[in-house]
């Protein structure tokens, strides 16, 4: 009969960049149960709707998180545009697509680096972040901010990206793809990497669906649910792409899905640059929003929901953001049951946790 013990994991832990706490019930070295606990840095940004009007809320939404800045601004603007019945110009749709796919490249590169760091491959971590740095430079050239873009606006975009800039981006993306080919080799072939990832944290498709999992974590369990294929926002209805899935259901599959998604994102950006029409980038808006709408978009980390309820005045009633990390916590707890204690940091990382998003 083995003895049971409870050990706390986090909120301060070397592998965790952000505070999440797990109470791990252990039986010798095996985790039997994990109880999650968040709320260490809850900021109550949703409550700011009382103080900031619906246009100023765009700035608040963009600042929910540093890495998902584009996604949050896009989701909020999309919801308000639906309520106000505003059709944004085609060029703005394409530019939004380009920027959100670029942030997917940057977010996944960041994640790959963190993963390499978690299993102790430091030079690979540096390589991943060096590539990410080039994406951040592209953001700075395009929008003026490396992390917070401040380009979203209800009715379109605040700044246009000239065609020669897009052409320049194409060249830069070719270089990034070349470097990515080199960097992804160790992830796919290295023995040490495989030992840490293959067969660790298996999430069956049935469980993944029942627990409301989202994003690459879900697609690595073989369910092809990608909100971009609803073609309900941005210019995804004009773009050809297939959701990337893997049927291995383990941590290795999640890495594979994310690496392939980087290639897919680069491909989508190329298609957008080829097809982008000329024209204005914003539609002027009149009056105040009145009504409610639930928008869902595919962020780098998964499906995010934005619920906006407006009452016809300057201030909206409620803004609700359901972030992908929040949806992935139940599945994280599920995959932890039965794993080794040493695998817990890797498993926390494989959901790509963004606690700042979760604690909006």
């Amino acid at each position, binding site marked *: 009969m083995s003895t049971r013990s409870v050990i706390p994991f986090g909120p301060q832990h070397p592998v965790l960049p952000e505070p999440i706490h797990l109470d791990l019930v252990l039986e010798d070295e095996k985790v039997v149960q994990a109880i999650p606990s968040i709320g260490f840095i809850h900021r109550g940004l949703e409550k700011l709707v009382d103080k*900031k009007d619906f246009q*100023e809320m765009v*700035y*608040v939404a963009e*600042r929910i998180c540093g890495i998902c800045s584009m996604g949050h601004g896009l989701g909020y603007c999309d919801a308000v545009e639906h309520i106000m019945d505003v059709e944004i110009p085609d060029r703005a749709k394409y530019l939004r697509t380009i920027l959100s796919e670029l942030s997917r490249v940057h977010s996944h590169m960041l994640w790959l680096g963190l993963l390499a760091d978690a299993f102790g*491959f430091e*030079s*690979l971590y540096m*390589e991943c972040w*060096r590539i990410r*740095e080039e994406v951040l*430079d592209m953001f*700075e*050239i*395009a*929008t*003026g*901010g490396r992390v*917070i873009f*401040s380009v979203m606006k209800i009715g379109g975009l*605040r*700044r246009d990206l000239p065609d020669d800039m897009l052409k320049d981006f194409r060249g830069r993306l070719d270089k990034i793809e070349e470097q990515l080919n*080199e*960097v992804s*080799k*160790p992830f796919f*072939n*290295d*023995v*040490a*990497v495989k030992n840490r990832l293959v067969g660790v944290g298996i999430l069956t498709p049935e469980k993944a669906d029942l627990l409301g999992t989202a994003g690459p974590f879900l697609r690595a369990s073989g369910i092809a649910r990608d909100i971009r294929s609803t073609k309900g926002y941005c210019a995804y209805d004009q773009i050809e792409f297939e959701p990337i899935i893997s049927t291995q259901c383990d941590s290795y599959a999640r890495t594979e899905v994310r690496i392939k998604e980087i290639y897919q994102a680069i491909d989508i950006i190329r298609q957008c640059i080829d097809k982008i029409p000329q024209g204005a980038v914003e539609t002027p808006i009149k009056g105040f929003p009145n009504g409610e709408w639930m928008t869902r978009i595919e962020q780098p980390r998964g499906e995010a929901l934005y619920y906006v309820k407006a009452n016809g005045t300057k201030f909206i009633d409620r803004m609700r953001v359901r972030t992908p990390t929040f949806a992935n916590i139940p599945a994280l707890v599920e995959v932890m049951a039965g794993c080794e204690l040493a695998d817990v940091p890797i498993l926390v990382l494989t959901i790509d946790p963004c606690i700042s998003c979760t604690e909006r």
Partner: protein
Amino acid sequence: MSLINFNKTVIKNLFSKPATRKYPFEPKEYPERTRGHVVNDMDVCVLCGLCSIKCPTHAITVDKAEKTWSIRPMSCIQCRCCVDNCPKKCLSMDTHFTEPGSEKITKTFHQSEKAIAAQEALMKAAKERAAAAAAAKAAAAANAQPAANAQPAAPAGGAQPAATEKKDN
């Protein structure tokens, strides 16, 4: 095994320059669009106050009586909202970031003599135009209908306070 997959990168890194910059000796060159901090060209600014109304963090204060424009750099979030809304295009984003500091400061700028003089000249011209228009209207009305003299007097009276109100800007 890891070397076999990674050796190309390793060898390339051995013989190439570092990816980082020697920071204090080699300062970063910012692209043209970088949102560093807000600067105001006080020679052009008319202190309309639109930037202070639009600023989401209320970092900008405009004092029309003192003729000053002030910003709290620590509160500014570099969203570029004021620059987009400026009617005179006197606000712009400088590419260098706000200097760090140990306490929260307020930077105040006085409207330059040149701007005040230019604005006063504009106001004076506007006033003269209004007066001339009123006089012309009065004269026209007097010519056409000497009986209805009371009517054109009203718009002339209305134009006068509007001009003085503007002068406060």
